[in-house]
């Protein structure tokens, strides 16, 4: 099988990406959707005084959602998401703006697969959640 990767996709191409500034309402809805009652996400006195965090902790898997969205909005319905992986390396807190983005890392015209290098960066530009994805363009 040969792939059908559009010619305009080149190694080094940057994904449009998106910045997120989750507030308490967003974090509440996310943890409610999960049914996750972990106090560090909603109980500010507990998060700061007991756990010693500077604020309410943004849930780690939510960063995975933003990476998935970043890929998804770039491929639209042109390709299938085959693999997504990420690793939460550093915590983030309510009030921060976090940017999801990525770049085309490799193109395999034989399989139609494109590998992407992904990241969530904080306002200091540090990568707090690196990730990777593979998408497949089928004929």
């Amino acid at each position: 099988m040969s792939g059908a990767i559009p010619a305009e996709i080149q190694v080094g191409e940057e994904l449009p990406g998106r910045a997120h500034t989750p507030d308490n309402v967003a974090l509440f809805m996310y943890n409610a959707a999960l049914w996750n009652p972990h106090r560090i996400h909603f109980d500010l006195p507990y998060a700061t005084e007991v756990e010693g965090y500077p604020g309410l902790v943004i849930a780690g898997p939510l960063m995975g959602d933003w990476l998935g969205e970043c890929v998804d909005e770039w491929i639209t319905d042109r390709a299938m998401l085959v693999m997504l992986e990420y690793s939460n390396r550093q915590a983030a807190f309510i009030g921060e703006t976090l940017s999801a983005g990525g770049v085309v890392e490799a193109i395999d015209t034989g399989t139609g697969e494109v590998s992407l290098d992904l990241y969530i960066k904080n306002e200091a530009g540090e990568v707090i959640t690196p990730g990777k994805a593979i998408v497949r363009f089928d004929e």
Partner: protein
Amino acid sequence: MSGLLSPELLANIGKTELPRTEVVTRRDIRKYAIATDQRQRKYLDGDEAPPLFHVALFWDVVERDELTPDGVSIDKLLPKFPLERAMAGGLNIRYHDKIRAGDTLIGTRTLTDIYEKEGRSGPLIFYEVVLEVVRDDATAVITQTTTRILR
């Protein structure tokens, strides 16, 4: 290697939970799509699930007395480890098919590996849990490997 992992502990590799069956509703997809800041209509309307929806669908639902005071549920698939402070975790998700409203999905978790590595400030324990998600007609949907590190 500091020998933290006893044969008894390693004997837990391969342990599997009872499969869990969950029905995907449009309402749950819509809630998840809004909560995760999605912009595509297929997600916001609940036709199709965003890529990490299964994380919510198979999140453990436990009774109140099974929660620790900080609101965390104890993962019964895991043995008691000699290191307990959790560090970064990683997820690798392989997609075989999309999830849509009306699907009945069966999720099975297996503890697939436990190993030890020497970190910069002492020994680390790694473990891996694989979640296999299939549709009720046995079609493969998702294979997810979670790796966690304890120090």
